[in-house]
């Protein structure tokens, strides 16, 4: 059971990561296409605040504060009782609210599959392809060194 719980948490975290990385426009578009329910009681927010971003001295040493970033968060409760949260960089309140509802819906075993296939999977695919394109564009600028042979041997 403990293993199952850890797997669930890892999956939920991955869902929240996908929602946080995606744009509000993409989430709204897929939400409307999927016809997912968007009624929920707002327990908190959506509200915008700051987080202080930390780095590490030398890359891997002691932590230090680099600067701040805007984050918008929301917490919602569904009629069925599930409570969902969202924290995402930026100031998109509608995105934060929908992402919190998505987190709550995902926790409902009856709806998890639908949320995953109609919302999370397409978002993940879009993110993965954007990441892959960026990687390939960077890879095209990789320096291939070659040795010049001078004179005769």
């Amino acid at each position: 059971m403990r293993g199952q719980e850890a797997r669930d948490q890892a999956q939920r975290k991955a869902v929240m990561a996908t929602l946080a990385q995606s744009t509000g426009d993409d989430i709204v578009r897929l939400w409307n296409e999927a016809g997912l329910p968007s009624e929920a009681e707002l327990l908190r927010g959506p509200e915008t605040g700051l987080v202080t971003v930390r780095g590490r001295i030398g890359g891997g040493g002691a932590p230090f504060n680099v600067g701040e970033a805007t984050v918008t968060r929301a917490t919602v409760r569904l009629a069925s009782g599930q409570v969902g949260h969202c924290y995402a960089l930026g100031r998109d309140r509608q995105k934060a609210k929908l992402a919190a509802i998505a987190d709550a819906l995902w926790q409902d075993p009856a709806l998890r599959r639908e949320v995953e296939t109609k919302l999370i999977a397409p978002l993940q695919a879009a993110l993965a392809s954007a990441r892959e394109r960026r990687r390939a564009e960077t890879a095209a600028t990789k320096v291939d060194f070659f040795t010049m042979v001078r004179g005769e041997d």
Partner: protein
Amino acid sequence: MYVAVKGGEAAIANAHALLADRRRGDRSVPALRLDQIVEQLALGVDRVMSEGSLYDRELAALAIVQARGDMIEAIFLVRAYRTTLPRFGYTKAIDTGAMLVERRVSATYKDLPGGQLLGPTFDYTHRLLDPELAAGRDVAEPQQRASEAEAMPRVSAILAREGLIEPDGDMPQDHVPGDITREPLEFPMARDIRLQALSRGDEGFLLALGYSTQRGYARNHPFVGEVRIGEVELELDVAELPFAVPLGSVRVTECQMVNQFKGSAKAPPQFTRGYGLVFGQSERKAMAMALCDRALRASEFGEDVVAAAQDEEFVISHSDNVQATGFVEHLKLPHYVDFQAELDLVRRMRAEHDARENAGKAEEKREAAE
């Protein structure tokens, strides 16, 4: 002493209306949209985020427009906005080793795991103005190259294997990272606090100081071990969830400067390091920060503090351009009463001076006559 003087309300209101008009400029020219600034003046946006110490591209773009392109004014606007928001906490420390790299070069190793990736760089351009850009020519899609995802360890880790470089900077186990946005500056300061101040410091100021170290004022033989630019993921521990919540990604630039060190009574000969980490794409700033970080560690290595770049109080107290511009620019605000007081003082001193001169001349005349 301050004495309240009223007046100028209408002049101020009209000046602000005139500012709004001049900011907009010729109405027959389309107004800038924020997304145009975010996309096409991206490095300006990055500078405002870095020195404004707030990662939010749209807000930085808004600040740039509102400030008519005056970067320090834009940075000031962003700093002021920050103070209006509640704080949700400190993120977990980012892992630059896991970065989605967009550029990564090393001047110390030709062949290194992950390779040299030039990315979108101005390096090797001819610095010739491009008339085609002015004509709004279409831009081709960039090349792509299929390749396996490769691990890209930090260069410092490669040198560390031989034990020839000092480790990443550690602090005592129970050390809580200092935060200059919460506590006033105190000298001497720990390296973590110095790095926070440098990361939001003025690019021009840090660049000049870094340059001064290269020209012989606190010379420390630097090499760029590595510069990397790319996106890193942020996570935040929150009370309501049993795991760190993912927030999304930010783009940062990291510089590992490697410096020669001949050793001291306390440490064997080895390479030492300066570190730079800033928001956005700005390797000039990250490199300057790393040079300053290393110079400011002089006393740690028993080096003589002889140059401005090594003087912690001098560097950190003057690196913040919002503070600097506030104090310099306040000089133009009304100082009528202060000035009147000084005017009275100078008049009195001048009268006393003249009286002494006249008395001296009268004395000389009398002596000459006698």
